[in-house]
């Protein structure tokens, strides 16, 4: 734990990529393989399993220390993070180990030991008093920073300020490997264990595990720079679908579906998996999963009903019929074909797919544009076609690893927008702790009430955030715990990608990816948009 804590501290206290890589290399050079594998999984956000909720961590703390609830809440509102608040309060109560005690004076449990033995054992304890006792015994042997890390590991979603690219680079430099190789082996890796680390850094050419996907190629935003020397022969244009980017893996007699976030989502889409049984073994396809009803691609909201469930019920399967739109082929006849051109890959794809084509398995059509203006026209048409824009790919390009400039571009439709009134604010977390940065926006109803319709966290720069924070503190009507209700005053232009009817929200609508586009200081709050305007948008979009 000490070595990992030191690594965390070093990564956290520099903004220089080189320094971060140096720290990573130092760690990977010395760490035992099982710890190193855990570290890889943690640093690249591949494990985010929650063993305890933040709430139960807090409850345990309050129970064992008899700490006053309000004082905890005041502290939390200053820190904005449960794991960190607890580490600081434990320090204040002398229930943490003093930092200045030299390493070696107390025994140090390895990262693997914590993650494989101590934390799972803690999770098994049902009795709350016993669990609190156990937690306290953990905390007492750790420094405040170690407590913070342990708490984060238990509550899941631990984010460390380092990119996957840096981790890959450090590993490849320490173990003398190609970065693409490490990157590929890491794709789809989710399991700890020394063996898995050895696989990751092996010098030999390894058969990849049958389930392992390829790293996804990611697109850059289309820019005017690239329009200058437009050549209609060079570019392959396709719709950009608002679904789940996925790889279909047909290997070893089985089928896996991987999402771009490198989750195995096979269980969520058994209807799709089943259809690909007819695909020849040793095939990998790249495409998009969407929900199609009455030949219409449905909103992303519909797609989400499939996710996060251990088993999808027959009713859900019936109500949300999934389809796969294929646009690339990465492997055929057990052979990696990422190096051949997109044109050739498309030909192979078509041949493979033709016998399978149906309502549920489709090929992504290629569109025509003679000039950049026609690309714009297509883009403008995309909502009508239930797409969120167009993709522009180089016909002659191989399938690159990760985001590499020049091959794949995306040109998305402009977001839908509404002018809404800021109605509630809540302090953010992490970097935004103790700053009011989580905003709720409202639209006018027919009877002149402001009805919340969207929450947004991003879109303002630091100056605007500070300015707004200052205003919020002085124009609070009421406080409900961490939330402040505000005098209706400020109007913001809110952009979002999609809008769908929803009976879970008072407003009757749910929007996708809402964010602040502009602070409309020119508008008074009674000039903000009405809900009826939002309902009109419903018809124009998927």
């Amino acid at each position: 734990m000490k070595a990992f804590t030191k690594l965390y501290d070093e990564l956290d206290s520099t903004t220089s990529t080189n320094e971060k890589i140096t720290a990573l290399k130092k760690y990977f050079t010395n760490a035992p393989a099982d710890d190193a594998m855990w570290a890889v999984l943690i640093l690249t956000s591949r494990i985010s399993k929650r063993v305890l909720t933040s709430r139960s961590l807090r409850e345990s703390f309050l129970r064992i220390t008899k700490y006053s609830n309000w004082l905890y809440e005041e502290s939390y509102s200053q820190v904005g993070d449960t794991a960190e608040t607890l580490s600081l309060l434990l320090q204040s109560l002398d229930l943490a180990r003093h930092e200045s005690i030299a390493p070696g004076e107390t025994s140090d449990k390895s990262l693997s030991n914590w993650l494989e033995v101590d934390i799972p054992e803690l999770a098994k304890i049902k009795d709350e008093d016993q669990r609190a006792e156990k937690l306290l015994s953990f905390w007492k042997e750790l420094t405040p920073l170690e407590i913070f890390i342990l708490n984060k590991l238990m509550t899941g979603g631990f984010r460390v300020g380092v990119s996957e690219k840096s981790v890959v680079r450090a590993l490849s430099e320490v173990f003398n490997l190609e970065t693409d190789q490490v990157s590929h082996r890491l794709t789809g890796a989710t399991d700890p264990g020394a063996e898995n680390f050895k696989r990751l850094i092996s010098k030999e050419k390894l058969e990849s595990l049958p389930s392992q996907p390829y790293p996804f190629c990611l697109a850059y935003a289309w820019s005017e720079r690239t329009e200058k020397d437009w050549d209609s022969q060079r570019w392959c244009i396709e719709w950009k679908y608002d679904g789940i980017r996925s790889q279909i893996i047909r290997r070893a007699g089985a089928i896996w579906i991987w999402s771009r976030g490198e989750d195995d989502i096979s269980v969520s889409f058994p209807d799709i998996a089943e259809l690909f049984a007819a695909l020849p073994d040793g095939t990998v396809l790249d495409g998009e999963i969407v929900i199609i009803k009455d030949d219409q691609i449905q909103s992303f909201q519909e797609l989400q009903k499939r996710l996060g469930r251990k088993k999808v019920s027959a009713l859900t399967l019936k109500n949300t019929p999934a389809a796969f739109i294929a646009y690339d082929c990465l492997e055929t006849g057990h052979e990696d074909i990422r190096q051949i051109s997109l044109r050739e890959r498309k030909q192979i794809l078509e041949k493979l797919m033709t016998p399978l084509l149906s309502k549920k398995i489709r090929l992504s059509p290629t569109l025509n544009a003679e000039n950049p203006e026609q690309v714009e026209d297509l883009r403008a048409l995309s909502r009508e076609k239930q797409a969120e824009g167009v993709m522009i790919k180089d016909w002659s390009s191989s399938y690159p690893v990760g985001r590499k400039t020049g091959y794949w571009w995306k040109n998305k439709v402009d977001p839908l927008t509404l002018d809404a009134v800021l109605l509630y604010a809540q302090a953010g977390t992490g970097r935004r702790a103790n700053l009011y940065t989580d905003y709720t926006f409202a639209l006018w109803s027919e009877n002149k009430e402001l009805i919340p319709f969207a929450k947004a966290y991003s879109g303002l720069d630091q100056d605007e955030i500070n300015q707004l924070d200052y205003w919020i503190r002085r124009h609070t009507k009421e406080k409900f715990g961490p939330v402040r209700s505000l005098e209706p005053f400020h109007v913001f232009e809110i952009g979002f990608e999609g809008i769908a009817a929803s009976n879970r929200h008072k407003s009757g609508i749910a929007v996708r990816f809402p964010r602040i586009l502009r602070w409309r200081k020119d508008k008074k709050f009674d000039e903000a948009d009405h809900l009826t305007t939002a309902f009109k948008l419903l018809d124009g979009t998927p």
Partner: protein
Amino acid sequence: MKARAWHKIWNIKTVNNLVRATSEGLYCEPGNFFIDPWKPVQTALITHAHSDHAHAGSAQYFCAEKCLPLLKHRIGHENKYHALKYGEKFKIGDTVISFHPAGHILGSSQVRIEYKGKVWVVSGDFKRGEDPSCDEFEVVHCDVFISEATFALPIYRWESGEVTAKKIFDWWQSDLERPSLLFCYALGKSQRVLAELKKFTDKKVYLHGAVENLTEIYRKNGIDLIDTAPVASMEKGYSFKGDLIIAPPSAHRSTWMKRFKDPQTAFASGWMQVRGVRRRKGYEKGFVLSDHADWIELNRTIEQTGAKTVYLTHGKTDVLERYLTEKGYEVRLFKTEYEDQEEASS
């Protein structure tokens, strides 16, 4: 002070208080003087030379002897000054006043006011931790204690200055290929760091112009500091590779910083206790080092003074108010214009 605490501000008309808050500052009527007034007055007693406590324009100033050179530097040499030794009693009007060390910065004082057998103490800003650059805080028994509350939350707990200085030293030594820029307040914090660093090294430290003059005043008053040189004294092209440079926070991301190629940056302040604050301010490294009392020190100090009534001036006053009230203290708030000296966190 938070807006919601305003309604609790002591109503000055209804109570016969020795010290009360006015629009000019804290006022003592029987002595007809103000403590750290933010507007010009006839007689001003100054607790310490930080700019939110020491304002120019008053007719006469009283301060501790060790505060005088800093005060003169800050508000001018021409004013009428009365400097008292720590503990020296002086009659002003119907009151007897004296200054006692507050441990905040060089010359910082608590003001003790005695009137008709009652003793009030105004703490100014104070800390309890050891600091080789100023006199240690003295506990003064009183009936009413007027305290700051800058860091009045239990998450604030300081390690000793020496331990933190060692961390600063290690950080500096960890990368001798780059300049190390440490940002901290020009008056007090910088000199505390310079005094602590002397325990670990005799290397030279370079100073931003704003830190330099104040450091000289410390030296002239017998505070033992590590060797320093002004950044400006080095010839053009000198790289500062492997050097430690101390500068005020206002220089962070300023054009002044361009002089240093690829520096590592850190900020020394109590606010650095919270990770999110450090990241927001854009410093790579944060060192938790404060010249204010932490939560435990605040509470211990209030207990030690024996006061049953406590007034709070600035900082997290609402938290400390509730906490002390639950413990049975009589707690009141004063509205002042003192800042959370180490810069507001919000």
